[in-house]
Every structure is written in structure tokens, then in C-alpha cells.
């Protein structure tokens, strides 16, 4: 389907949403629309595909419910703005959208939106409710994530050789649907949680020395980054290996890359990369590499997060339960950069090549 055809479809879908609401009004019922629930009790883990999937539970947004009224109004405003964007063939950032819609409600001191935290989740609501992707609504988020390595990408007619971008690499945009992969030469993609570790490995020429592509998620991976990793894996058949801090937050970032996230469970199919493997940091690394002195004590929030992860169906395999249990028992976490206690080069010259070569990877 051409983008233009899809745009027309999306406009129709948005109009259908508006007609539904007008239908409610003419039938003397509260204006309403339904949104699939995105909480844990409506998330199913598809073990066979190793992906999170959205269940069929819906919640109803009703304008006459005083707790929903403002969100209902805001959702309609977002829908109206998206229709305008799609019709004009423009794409706005979610921050621009927020500013476009923010104003004082007539005769009050109240704003339509107080901060972007109010509009962002409603965009996801609208996507899932209308079954339309964010980019199809012509919305994008800020660039987040960096890629470096032996891959040539065609972007709007320009060729980008990601091995020739110096130390900075390619800034991964929110929408990468238009990317075309031209040439690739890599044994695997190393996805790294922290920018600092990414920089270290760039300086150590890790991609050149190990024939791999490197991606930094810079914390939790954004959609663009997840979609890019997914496409490289699916379209180019390059394996994905993930490298995070040894704590519940890092492990969760890994699970999002691999199986998808709860908030975007409706898009797991497009964003999750079930073949992803995990290289570190693991709890056994601490003993293996003598890192006992450079661990950090778990805080209460860390402990709480561990017990949450232990409840998630997609962490229910023996390797991960063992890691999390071990972490909880020892009461410590280990950062990627703790490897620098050995030497700056240690991670690039010994830790990663050795673990990857020996296949010491977690599923």
C-alpha cells in the first residue's frame, strides 16, 4: 500500500471516530470510545513467538464520566490535529503536537494540556483505539539512540555509510520506515544500554575489530531504535546481542528489545526481536571476573523492581529467574562500566569477545 493510500485510510478512520461520537450524542448517550487495556492483566505472553501481545480487554472512555471528561476532550483534540497533519502531509513531533494544542480553555485559567505528560499517553491510546500506528498519524518522537558500523542505509535518496560517521554514528530517528538497507557486513549487532559504554567501544574500535554493528539505546529503547534493530534482524538476518547493566532496569530494557513492551504490546510484532541474546552484565560475571569490590548495593526501588520482574511471564525461564534471584539474594547490582576496574580496554579486548565467542549468552 502506498503511503498516500494509507493516509486516506487513516483520515477515514479518524472521521469514523468522530462520527461515532456524534452518533452517541444524537442517541442521547454519553460520548464514548474504547481503548484496549494496556495493563499487565491484559498483556499475554506468547511463549511460542516470545512476544508480548495485547489481550482483548477494553476500557471505555466516557465524556460524561467526570474522571474521563478532560482526557476525552484531549483525545478528540489530538485526533482532530492528526487528521489535519495527515491531510496536509506534514509530520509533527509529539512535542510540537502538544504545543499546537495547548491553550487556555475559554473563560478559564485552565489549559487544554498542562504538560506533555498529558498528551503522550493519549497518543498511544488513540493509536491502539484506532488501530493506527503513531507514524501513520504523522507523529514522531525525538531522535533517540545511535548506530555505528558496517551498514549502508538509503534515506530519502541519500546513502549513509554508517562506518564513516566518525565517533558520533547515526542518530536514530523516531521513524525509520523509509530506510532502505543497501549493504551490510556484520556478524552481529551489539545493542548497548549506556551511551558511555558505546563511546568506550567506539574508541576501542570494537565494531571494526569484531565485524559488528553497534547500537546504543541510551536507556530504555525508543520505538525507532527498536524498529531498526527488528528490521536489521528480520530483513538482513543479522543476530542481535544485547549488553546492559546488571540490574533489573537493564534486564527490562533487554526484555523490551526482545519481546516488546506492555505499553506498545499492540506493536510487538513490529518492534520485538525474539531472537535477541544477552551477553551481560550477569550476576555470574561478578565471580567470574572478580568484580565483587565494584558492585553496588541494591536500593529499595531496585528490590521492588526485581520482584516485579519475577512476576512477569516473559521472565519465567530458569536462566533469568536464576539471575534475578541471585541479584536479590546478594543484594547487589553491577554496572557495565564497572569492567573499567580491570582496565579501559578490558571490555573490548577480553570480556565481550570472549563471552560472545564462547557463546556464553543468556536467552
Amino acid at each position, binding site marked *: 500500500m502506498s503511503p498516500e493510500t494509507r493516509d486516506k485510510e487513516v483520515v477515514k478512520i*479518524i*472521521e469514523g*471516530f*468522530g*462520527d461515532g*461520537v*456524534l452518533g452517541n*450524542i*444524537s442517541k*442521547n448517550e*454519553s*460520548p464514548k470510545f474504547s481503548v484496549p487495556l494496556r495493563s499487565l492483566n491484559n498483556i499475554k505472553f506468547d511463549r511460542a513467538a516470545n512476544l508480548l501481545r495485547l489481550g482483548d480487554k477494553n476500557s471505555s472512555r466516557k*465524556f*460524561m464520566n*467526570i474522571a474521563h*471528561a*478532560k482526557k*476525552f*476532550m484531549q483525545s*478528540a*483534540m489530538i*485526533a*482532530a490535529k492528526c*487528521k*489535519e497533519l495527515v491531510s496536509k502531509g506534514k509530520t509533527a513531533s509529539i512535542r510540537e503536537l502538544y504545543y499546537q494544542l495547548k491553550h487556555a*480553555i*475559554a473563560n*478559564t485559567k*485552565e489549559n*487544554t494540556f498542562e504538560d506533555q505528560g498529558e498528551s503522550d499517553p493519549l497518543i498511544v491510546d488513540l493509536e491502539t483505539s484506532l488501530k493506527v500506528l503513531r507514524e501513520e498519524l504523522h507523529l514522531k518522537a525525538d531522535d533517540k539512540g545511535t548506530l555505528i558500523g558496517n551498514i549502508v542505509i538509503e534515506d530519502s535518496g541519500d546513502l549513509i555509510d554508517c562506518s564513516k560517521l566518525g565517533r558520533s554514528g547515526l542518530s536514530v530517528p523516531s521513524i525509520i520506515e523509509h530506510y532502505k538497507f543497501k549493504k551490510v557486513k556484520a556478524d552481529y549487532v551489539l545493542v548497548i544500554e549506556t551511551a558511555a559504554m558505546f563511546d568506550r567501544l567506539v574508541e576501542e574500535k570494537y565494531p571494526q575489530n569484531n565485524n559488528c554493528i553497534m547500537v546504543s539505546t541510551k536507556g530504555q529503547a525508543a520505538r525507532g531504535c527498536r524498529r531498526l534493530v527488528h528490521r536489521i534482524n528480520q530483513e538482513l538476518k543479522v543476530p542481535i546481542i544485547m549488553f546492559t547493566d546488571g540490574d533489573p532496569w537493564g534486564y527490562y530494557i533487554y526484555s523490551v528489545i526482545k519481546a516488546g513492551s506492555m505499553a506498545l504490546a499492540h506493536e510487538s510484532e513490529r518492534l520485538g526481536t525474539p531472537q535477541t541474546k544477552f551477553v551481560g552484565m550477569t550476576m555470574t560475571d561478578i565471580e567470574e571476573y572478580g568484580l565483587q569490590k565494584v558492585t553496588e548495593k541494591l536500593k529499595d526501588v531496585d528490590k521492588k523492581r526485581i520482584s516485579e520482574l519475577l512476576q512477569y511471564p516473559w521472565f519465567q525461564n530458569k536462566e533469568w529467574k536464576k539471575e534475578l534471584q541471585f541479584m536479590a539474594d546478594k543484594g547487589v547490582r553491577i554496572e557495565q562500566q564497572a569492567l573499567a576496574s580491570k582496565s579501559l580496554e578490558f571490555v573490548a579486548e577480553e570480556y565481550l569477545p570472549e563471552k560472545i565467542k564462547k557463546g556464553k549468552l543468556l536467552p
Partner: protein
Amino acid sequence: MADEEIVTKEKNAEELFKEFREVSVTEFFRKNRAHLGYSGQLRSLTTVVHELVTNSLDACEEAGILPEIYFEIRQLGQEHYKFKARDNGPGIPVKHIPKVFATMLAGTKFHRHVQLRGQQGIGVSGVTLFSQMTTGQPITVRTCTGDNKVNEVKLLVDVTKNTAEMVEEKQYSGYWRGTEVEGELKGVAYNTSERGPYEYLRRTAIANPYAEITFVDPEGRKTLFKRTSDKVPKPPTEMKPHPKGLAVDDLLNYAKASESRHVGSFLSSSFARVSSAKVNEMQKLVSFDLNKNPRKLAWAEAEEIIKAFDKMDFMAPSSEGLRPIGENQIKNAVLKILKPEFEVVITRPPKVFSGGVPFQIEVAVAYGGNAGRPVSGENSEEGVTAKAEIMRFANSTPLLFDASGCALTKAVNGVDWKRYGIKDFDNSPLTIFVNLISMYVPYVSAGKQSVAEEEEVIKEIKMALMEAARKFQIYHSRMRREIEKEAKLNTLLKYTTELAPALALITGKDEKKILKDLTHLVKEKLRIEALEDELEDESEEEAKDASFEEGEKE
């Protein structure tokens, strides 16, 4: 029969009086100052106001006159005040002036089964004596019975003879009827607290809605409490005691004084609601012959009669002798003086407490407006504008002192106000009005500011307050809901102004029509919600009424 009884009782009073005369009046007063209400600077002043005002009200009522009362307090110096009290009552015949203003224990009220304000006959003479003891000055009385002859006397209490010492006597002509009393007081203090003269008169005005009261305070500020009713209550009538709740010694006292030939006829003639059929019924319950001479009744036999009384059913005591203020009268007075957002008045049917004494309870609950005691800026907690006040009355007379030991206070505090939606009773703009009506108010002491804890009295007050509180609760939840509804409507209408243009942009339909339809929908939906709530309210109300009555039976 009734007359004879009073004679007997008066003899007893004479005896009492003889004993009392053996010590000097001043000494008696000094010893009993606190009991007579003359303890503390503020209380002494309030007592003076009380004695003079009740005297005026009683006089007007007995004469069937709509009272107009004027009271003025002026400050002459440190702890030194002058008062002037005037009424439009029947006036006092000159020969009775000494008895009214300078004789202790002269009253006859003490021994009558009649509901009056003053009960122990110490009253106004106490004012004369207090003035005389603190300033050495006589009081001035001007009075005229409407015969164009005004009598003006200055008098002191002759403390050895317990009668008046006339300092000066004048008579002149004047077209006027009523009594005016003027005097000076030392060792007293005026303030506007809830135990001061102003509050006393404000409460008197609420409980005596047919009285018009003018008050001029020491700063010259004049307050007029207008009457809200022009019906003078009927003069009180005498009533026989009711058998329920009589004590053995009460019965024996009555029996000893009886001139009936048989216990049976003694019972039916001395007590209310005891018919000859009831006497026959009783004969089956007692072990001795009711044809016995009542003056020879033994303690054990009297006990049997009391037990039989307890087992038997009698008609409720007649409320004839009781004079409630009346629901409408209280309501009008409360509305006028407190201007509340909500008020409810409950009058309970007459009951008896121990001794066969009939009594009746009237309560009012007022919320919002000027109800409660206003909180001054400094001491106020956030959002608290008034504190709850309890207005206690005995026979329409305000009780301002000794609140903590009073049965009326205990009854009010014994109600679980939280159950009725009043979360913080003390910090609510509430006025709780409680009037205990009885021929004999069971005061804790002669200070007459505190009612003894009679179980039946407390129970009745609580019943009345609970009934009032339920009505308040319905109002209160309705109000709260209305406020919520209003807020909800405003919120929805506010968002409607943004929702309509968004929908117009999406659908391409006319924005004005969408706005109109949406506004209509919101208003209609809320109107239906409100109607549903009201229906729910009514069914709840019925359910509560049912459970309340069950509770009462237990």
C-alpha cells in the same frame, strides 16, 4: 384537695424559713453565694440579668401581657457597673414590693406543681442583697400597676429581719405600667463571651419568641431582639404527679399528707392517670388491702405500690401543665436570630422522670448562617468559620454556666454526630438548642445552671437530637451533592467548548450544532442523575425511619 396539699407544703416552707432565720441573711448569702449564682465577676453580673429578666417574663406571662423588656448596663469604674431593667409587666402593688425585692425564700413557687422559670424564691431579693453588699447602695424600684400612680422606692434588705428597709418612698402620677429596677454593682465584669449578659439575652430571645428585648451594653451599643410571635403562652396550670417513676419516699410523703380514707382513693385522687379501674388492677398486684388508711401506709407497702406502678400501664402524663415553646415559635425565632441555611425543630411527647415528674424536650438544630459561635481570625483553623455551640435551656431560661456537668450537654455530646454526616462536630457552624420543660427541673445546685443526670431526660434529648440529626443529614448530603453536581456540570460544560470544535474539525459538521447538542446532552444527563438521587434519598429516608422506630421500641 389540691389546695389542702399546698397548705401543708407551705407549712413545711414556714418551718424551713424558721431555720433559715436563725442565721443572718447576709451570712446565709455569703455561705451560699456560689449556689445562688454570685460567684465570679462575670457570672454575678449574668445572674443579676437572669433574675430580673425571668422575674419580668414570669410576671408578664401570668398577666397575659406580651413582654417588652429593656436592659441597660453601664460601666461606672473598675469592676463597677450600673444596671437598669424595665418591663411592661403588671406592676407590683406597693405593699408587695418588700416581699419581692427584699425577702429571701418568700416565694410560693417552690411548692407548686407548676412550670415557672424561678423556682426557689431567692430571685430578685438576691440582686438587692448583692448590690447592697458590694456597693452599700440601695436599689431603686419604680413600679406602676396602670393606675397612673407610680411608686418609687429605694430599698435595702434588712439583714436581721429578712425584709425591706425602705430608704426612700415616693409616689407620683404617670401614664405607664410596668416595673423598673436600677442599682449598682461592684466586683463584677462585663464581657461578650458566651456566658455574658448579651448571650444570655440573645438566648432568652430565641427561647421566648413572644418577648421583645432591648439591650444596651456598656459601650452604648443597642441591640433589639424583635419578637417573632405575638402569642403569650397560657398561664401554667397545676398538675398531679404521674405514677410512673415515683419513689417510695415521695409516695409516703403524699400519703402522710392525704386526707383520703382509703389508699385506693388516695391513689386515684393524688396522682394523674390513676383511675378506679387501675386501683382494682393494682389490688391484684399487692399483698395488702387497698382500703387501708393511707396515713398508716408502711414503707414495705409503699414499695409494693411503686413496684405495681412500674408493672402497670398508664396513660402518658398530661402535657397540660407543661408549656413547650412550640415548634413554629422556635423555628421563627431561630430563623430570625441565627438566619441559618438549615434548621429543624423537634418537640418530643411528654415523659416522666423519677418522682413522677412530667417533662418534655424541645430541640432545634441550626446549621450555617449565623449558627455556631464565630471563630476569630487568629485562632481559627483552616476553613473553620464557626464552632458548634450548645444552647441549654430549662423552661426557656438559658443555662450559661456549669455546662460540663450538665445532663443537657452530656446528651448532646452523647449523640454520635459522625453518623449523621457531621465529621467534626466541634468545628461546625452548628447551634444545638435544647429546652427542658418541667415543673421541677432537676438542677444540680441552687445555682440553677446545670441539670442533674436523670436517665430519662438524657434519653429523651438524645432521641430528639437523633431525629433532628437525621433530618439534617438528608439536607446536608443533598446540599453536598448539589454542590458536586454543580461542579460536575461546570466542568463538563467547560470541556464541551473544546470538544465541540475538535469534533467539528474531525467530522466536518457544523460546530455550533455540535456544541448545542452536546450542551443539551450534558444538562439532560445531569438532570436525570439528580432525579435518580432524589428517589434514592426518599427510599433511604423511609428505611431509616423504620429502623429508628424499631430502635425506639427497644
